[in-house]
Each structure stands twice: as C-alpha cells, then as structure tokens.
C-alpha cells in the first residue's frame, strides 16, 4: 500500500472542536498512516514543505485564526492550491452559510462531510468531489464508551442536572431553554451571544474539559438547530455519550427524517414523555453499543483511500 505524505492542518486558536477533531483523527489513524501523516497548526504549516495530500479541518475556522494576517491567509490559500490532493474536512450542514463559505476556499479535490448521515451536496460542488465520513469515536474513546455502558442505571438517575443546553444564543434556543425550564427549572443553559465553544479560556466559554464536566452531571444533553435541512450535529451525540448523558435533539421540522437515531423529538412535550421513562438510560447504552460497533474515526478515514 502506498500512502502519500499527508498533512492535516487546523487552527488551535479558534473553535476547539475542530482542533480537537484534527488531533483525535491524527492520533487514531492506523500506524502505517500516522507514520506518513503530519499534524500542523495552521501558522506553522506556512513554512512546511509541500505534502502530496493536505486535509484542512474546517477552512473557515482555519482562516479565522487570529494569528494569521490577511497576507498569511492569501499565502495559505495559494499553498493549499499547490498541493496535488486537497481535502476539506468539515462538519457543517449543507445549505448553511457556514458550509457555503467553505467552498470559497481552495479548489478542493475532495469535500469530506463528517456526520451521521450523508447530505445532498449543493450544485456548486463538482460531481465526485463530495464524500461522506461517518463520525465515530476513536479507539481510545471506545474504551470510555464501554465503561459508560457498564455504569448502573441508578448513577444516571442521580445526576443533579436534568438537562443542559449549550450553544450560541438564537430565538429558537432561547425558546427551548424557557420550555425546558418550565418543565425542570434546574437545568443548565449556556447560550451566550456567540462562540459558545471558543477555545480561549479568557473568553469565558466552555472548553472541551468544561463541557465534559457539565455533561457528566447531566441526564439529557439537549440541542436544537434551525437549519433548512435535516442535520444531526453528530459531534454532540458523541460528547453526550462519552460523558454518560443522553443526547437529545429537538427539531420540529425534520424530526421524522432523523428519528432512526432514537433521540430526535419534534416538541418538548415528546421529550418530557420520553424523559419520564427509563428510556433515556437505555438509549445511552444502545447508542454506545452502536458507536462501539463502528470502525473508529481514524480507521474510517483511512478506509476512504484504499490501497
């Protein structure tokens, strides 16, 4: 098998999710791949030799790196376009401005859509460029998921926070937080005006460790989105499961299209009925088992480029 020299590039100075994704992906690659793959923080990559393949983990976040000047971003664009194989790794909903802005970057040879189910790419994406990578735990995270499965149901029931909702403030999320508080007042609502997962601790946002600490005390990790397409936000599902919390998505428009996950509801009333049963913990166990059966993140990535 010939694995071309590959660089994975990300920004360690913006939203932590993408930096974390890049690092987890690299660490989880099969050994033969990892030996041929280098992990770069974007500013450092500007001085690196050209690889045969580059994987940019979220172009927009990378170019928002405050350490990069406008000239640096132009240089980055030019350099990425000089690499023979240019892969964009993104976990965005097709049809949103965040997805469209990814297309304003280099001429991608592959757009790798990370999520729970494939999306229909927009017309602007040339045929054959779109590929799907199912989001999955790393091998190390699978160990943690196995531990979660072995926890007693009582431990779940005794968690002090009935629910948690974390995201940027939107009218939809504000309404959901109010509805959840009307049901169980003592849930956690962290909905700042923007950048809820910003990486810098001095911004007062939740880092990966803080989010995990919140979810370890929470029964239901609830989120809602207002995309014009069915979209799951699969990273939230894994965050919840790794902390032993039950993932719950509220989606009034597309609940039917997403129901096979078992954790998507159309209304807060449906959620209340679900939460009143023993189902939330059973769902945690079932979803953990489902995640354990999948190839790990790095293995799934490597399998996209067979020898």
């Amino acid at each position, binding site marked *: 098998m010939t694995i071309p020299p590959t660089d994975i590039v990300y920004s360690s100075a913006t939203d932590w999710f993408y930096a974390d994704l890049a690092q987890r992906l690299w660490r989880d690659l099969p050994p033969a791949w990892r030996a041929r793959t280098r992990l770069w923080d974007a500013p450092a990559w500007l001085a690196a030799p050209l690889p045969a393949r580059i994987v940019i983990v979220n172009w927009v976040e990378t170019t928002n790196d405050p350490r990069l000047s406008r000239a640096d971003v132009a240089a980055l664009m030019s350099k990425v376009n000089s690499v023979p194989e240019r892969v964009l790794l993104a976990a965005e909903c097709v049809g949103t401005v965040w997805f469209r802005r990814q297309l304003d970057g280099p001429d991608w040879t592959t757009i790798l859509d990370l999520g729970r189910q494939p999306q229909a790419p927009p017309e602007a994406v040339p045929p054959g460029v779109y590929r799907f990578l199912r989001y999955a735990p790393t091998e190390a995270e699978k160990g943690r998921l196995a531990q979660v499965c072995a926890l007693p149901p009582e431990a779940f029931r005794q968690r002090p926070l009935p629910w948690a909702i974390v995201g940027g403030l939107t009218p939809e999320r504000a309404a959901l937080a109010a509805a959840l508080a009307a049901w169980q*007042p*003592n849930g956690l*609502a962290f909905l700042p005006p923007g950048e809820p997962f910003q990486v810098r601790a001095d911004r*007062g946002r939740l880092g990966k460790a803080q989010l995990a600490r919140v979810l370890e005390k929470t029964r239901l990790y609830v989120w809602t989105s207002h995309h014009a397409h069915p979209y799951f936000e699969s990273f939230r599902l894994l965050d919840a499961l790794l902390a032993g919390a039950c993932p719950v998505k509220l989606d009034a428009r597309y609940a039917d299209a997403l129901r096979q996950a078992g954790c998507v509801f159309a209304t807060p009333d449906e959620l209340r009925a679900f939460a009143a049963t023993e189902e939330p913990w059973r769902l945690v166990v079932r979803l953990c088992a489902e995640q354990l059966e999948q190839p790990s993140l790095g293995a799934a990535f490597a399998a996209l480029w067979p020898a």
Partner: protein
Amino acid sequence: MTGRGIAKRAGVSILIPNWNHRFSLPRAIRSAFAGMRQLQARGIACELLVVDDASRDGSQKYLFHLATQYTDLPTRIIWLAKNVGPGPARNIGLMQAAYRHACLLDADNELEPANLWLFYRAALETDATVTYGVLPVRGDDRPDLLSNEALHARFYRQNYVDGFALLDAPAALAAGGYAPARGLLEDWELMMRLLARQALIVFVPVVFGYYYRIPGSGHTIAPEPLAHHLRRIFNQDELRSREGRLIGRMYHPDIGWLA
C-alpha cells in the same frame, strides 16, 4: 452612604422595591414566597422585604393585606412617605434587610423559586458579591435571554446583565450602594464600582428568574447619553472594554468553576 461594618445574619432577604406596580406585584410576590418556602425547607433563614416607594396605584392596600394572608412567611413592608426613585429605595432595602444576601427582585419580574437555593449555594461557595443567572424574557414576541454569560470587558461599553440578582448586601453597601442619580443605570454603575473594588461577580448558567418586557418599564439597554457619562468614568478611551478579557466568572454548585 456607607455600609462598612454592617453585619447581617446568614440567610436571604428577597427585596422588592415597588412603585406603582400593583398590576404585577402579586406575581412577583407569589414567586418570592415560593422561593422562600424552598429555602425554609432547607433550613435557610429568609424574609420578604417590600419597599413601597410612595405608590399611588393601590399597591399599598394590597401590601397591607399581604402580611395577614401569609402568616407563615416573614414579611416586612417599608412605607416611604415620599417617592425617592429605584436606587435609593433599593438602598433602604439593603440597609433594612435582615440577612446578608439580598435577592433584588423588581416588582415586574418573577423569581424562579426552585433555583433560589442553588444561587444561594453558589453565593456562599464562591463568596461572590453578585451572583446572577439566566433570565428568559417574557412579554415579548421574540424569545430572548438576558444575563446569559459571565462578565466580559465589553461590559464596560454596554451593560448586558440585569440587576435582578443575588447581592451580598453588606459588600454592596460598603461600596456605596446604588447611586441615586443615575437614571436607569443604577445597576450598571454599581456593578462597575464593585468591579473597581475587585469584587467577585459570578454567573451561574441556570434560570434565575423571568424578565418581563413591559412598555414603560426600565430596560437593561441604557440610554446613550447616560451611558456615555458612565463610560467617561469607568472606561476612559474604551481602554477597559477593548481588553477583551473575562472580568467575571462562571460557576455551578454541582459542577464547580466553569470559567
């Protein structure tokens, strides 16, 4: 005004300054009583203290009968003979409060009774001077939240935290209490004065209460000329607001420090 040396007993005084809010007062007081019952169930001393700022809308008659209706809950009413405005009315309440922590509840808002205990725990565990939480907005078509993040330096440019919070009354009085002539900006001015004294201001990401947007009611967004005056005092040349750093902290009693 000085509150230096004022000692108060452990517990919570729910302080409602009222001026002509007869229409919403029962809702605020109902939520306060429900919160007090939650505190009492946990052995925490508490009281309701209403400062009536010379209302002329029938509030006084309602308040007069209140103490006779709820005999199981300590309730005091302070009657001001002359209208003094919200800042001085709050200061009178802070001075008269029996307990160290004062829950500042405006007469048009509503406390989330189930969570008062959680905020009291947070205030005790962090020794914060101000402890505040999320306020879903009601009475408006567009769902919104106020007071929904820890304090950032941009707070010096524009207030985004409502005064509906749990206050360490002696510490607030020691800082001078609410300034009497700040128009709608008493909350903001006091917070900035407390920050100048290195006071700890803690955000708890839990619903503290419900903020009602009512025509004619005070609003967190300050009128620009008044805000400009305060910026000249606390934020010369926007030096503080441009710092971009966190100036408050985030905490949850069941989780610990989050920021």
